[in-house]
């Protein structure tokens, strides 16, 4: 289908012409109208498709007025307009009949509706949804589609429980797809309203368009009970979720058609919900002094790491020995979820190279692991092995580095941090002295500042050298001195320019 804007331009332009009381009928029935309809892909079918759905509204303006707000199919309406025009261009006794009030009214109604349907609407959805229409097209450049591959689906659901699915096959790859399966049926009103309400609720929030290359697209049209139409679009990789409900999955399961492309091309990615890692090291230690009959003592050390979407937490437990258990729990709302989202559920820990058969076993020490992964869709997966490079999954190092970075970001807190408990509070009349180090130098220099937000570890911009060129330096410590206690007289100490920004580093 051509861009909405082209259709909108067409509808607005011809709507004005049909409203023009002074217009010569020749201008309306001349071939230009047909040329534009052809270009927009509208089909001249003598109004057959339209009249099948809307009866005499295909030519009677009073009937059209009754149904116009329920019409949402741009192509169907465009083709109806083309076909109606063709009547006056070709079949009418006198083409001038097109100027009669009832005929003008028909075109104005139809063209105004076409303009409304094709209008770009970036607003959030407002109101109570009456119907939705989802067009999903999954043509992409990977495998070239076969003649019979279903490449486009049009799904409509309304609040009366009516469901319509029209599908199109790729055909010979020419402009038009071939008609594929067509299904119409009813579901319980309650179910259709649940679907509509959730779709409406999702798009009543701010919608950031989801786009990516070579993955297909979807267009969604939601009509509310006031007949207002809202349009949204995106690439066919959108996992749209509201209140924990995935919209594509909901629609598939509620209308009981599995192979629907909807918003995600039925490829909605699985998620990792929980990872449990158990690490176990057993070390035999030969004591320096004999302990009875035993030749060895055994140190049984274990660790567990649990990353859990539900509790939004990461828990790390070290069982160091009898009576010595260290545990640390991070509860990071949104953060743990994002960490798990960044893991690829399809391939996580999928491949393990394995140790060769001739690997030398250390009889005094074993290191083993067990990993249990809970997915959103797939069954739980358990893997076990020896805790070494070839015994662990190939992507273990990436995973471990990622989780470690996440945990270290939050540090060990401030209670035991010397930079916190050693910090003295500034008194009136005291100067803020920064001890700073230049890059590649261990020597430190004093600068003063008025900015009391600067902390050790920050970078600041300072004048340096005799020419006072600007340099970025690292703050090693922050101290307060009265004039008499200052390591350098405030009047002889250079002042920093300001705290560094990201721009300074660029």
């Amino acid at each position, binding site marked *: 289908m051509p861009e909405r804007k082209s259709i909108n331009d067409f509808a607005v332009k011809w709507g004005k012409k049909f409203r023009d009381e002074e217009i010569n009928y020749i201008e309306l029935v001349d071939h230009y109208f047909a040329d534009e309809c052809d270009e927009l892909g509208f089909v001249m079918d003598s109004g057959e498709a339209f009249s099948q759905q809307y009866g005499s509204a295909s030519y009677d303006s009073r009937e059209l007025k009754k149904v116009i707000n329920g019409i949402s199919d741009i192509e169907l309406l465009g083709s109806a307009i083309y076909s109606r025009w063709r009547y006056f261009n070709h079949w009418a006794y006198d083409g001038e009949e097109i100027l009669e009030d009832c005929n003008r009214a028909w075109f104005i109604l139809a063209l105004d509706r076409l303009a409304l349907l094709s209008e770009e609407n970036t607003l959030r959805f407002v109101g109570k949804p009456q119907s939705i229409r989802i067009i999903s097209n*999954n043509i*992409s*450049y*990977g*495998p*070239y589609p076969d003649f019979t591959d279903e490449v486009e689906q049009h799904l409509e659901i309304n609040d009366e429980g009516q469901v319509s699915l029209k599908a199109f096959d790729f055909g010979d*790859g020419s402009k038009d797809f071939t008609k594929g399966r067509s299904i119409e049926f009813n579901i319980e009103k309650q179910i259709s309203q649940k679907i509509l309400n959730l779709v409406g609720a999702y798009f009543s929030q701010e919608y*950031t*368009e*989801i*786009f*990516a*290359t*070579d*993955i*297909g697209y979807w267009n969604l049209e939601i009509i509310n009970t006031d007949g207002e139409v809202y349009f949204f679009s995106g*690439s066919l*990789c*959108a996992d749209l979720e509201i209140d924990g409900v995935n919209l594509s999955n909901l629609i598939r399961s509620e209308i009981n058609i599995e192979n629907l492309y909807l918003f995600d*091309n039925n*490829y909605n*990615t699985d998620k990792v919900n929980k990872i449990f890692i158990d690490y176990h090291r057993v070390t035999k230690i030969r004591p320096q002094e004999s302990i009875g009959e035993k030749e060895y003592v055994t140190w049984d050390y274990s660790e567990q790491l649990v990353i859990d979407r539900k509790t939004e937490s990461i828990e790390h437990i070290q069982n160091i020995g009898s009576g010595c258990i260290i545990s640390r729990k991070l509860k990071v709302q949104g953060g743990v979820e*994002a960490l798990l*989202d*960044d893991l*690829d559920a*399809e*391939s996580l820990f*999928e*491949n393990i190279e394995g140790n060769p058969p001739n690997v030398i076993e250390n009889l005094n020490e074993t290191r083993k692991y067990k990993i249990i992964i809970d997915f959103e869709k797939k069954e739980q997966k358990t893997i076990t092995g020896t805790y070494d490079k070839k015994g662990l999954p*190939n992507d273990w190092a*990436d995973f471990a580095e990622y989780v470690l970075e996440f945990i270290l970001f939050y540090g060990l807190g401030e209670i035991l941090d010397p930079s916190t408990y050693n910090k003295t509070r500034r008194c009136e009349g005291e100067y803020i002295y920064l001890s700073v180090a230049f890059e590649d130098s261990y020597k430190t220099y004093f600068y003063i500042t008025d900015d009391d937000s600067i902390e050790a570890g920050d970078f600041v911009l300072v004048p340096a050298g005799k020419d006072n060129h600007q340099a970025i330096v690292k703050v090693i410590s922050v101290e307060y001195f009265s004039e008499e206690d200052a390591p350098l007289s405030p009047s002889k100490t250079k002042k920093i320019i300001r705290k560094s920004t990201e*721009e300074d580093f*660029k």
Partner: protein
Amino acid sequence: MDFNAFSKELNNIILETSTTLGKPINGSSLEIIDRGKPHKPEPLPAGKMGVYLFLYDDVFLKIGKAGPKSNARFYSQHYNPKSARSTLAASILSDKSNIAGTITESNIGDWIKENCHRIDILLDADVGIFALELIEAALHYKYEPIYEGFVTQR
């Protein structure tokens, strides 16, 4: 290929093209990251969108874009032939020229990481989709990646 020079070339293409159109893309909102070969894919940082480039032996395999809410497309899908209808992994596996030798669905992801050079162009999301589309289109035009577009369209 000299990838330092190549990164500069990418930067020039983006800045010159956008400047010619009268809307220069601000250098501070743009970051070109050479992930190298072998490479380790990184997720899209929050508030960023990106264009990715995959090369094998100086041949551009795939250049595509992903919006700020399409991290899976940017980060992982191209390494797994079953993760979407069209992926770099699926394209390589179905390529009759057999560029990757004896590879299978289970190791194609690792093969791509080991043998393909990846470059990511990150752009602040608030710069907007049109800027990202411009960059992608300019790079498609310039480098003609072999797995974008149907053969008959090239």
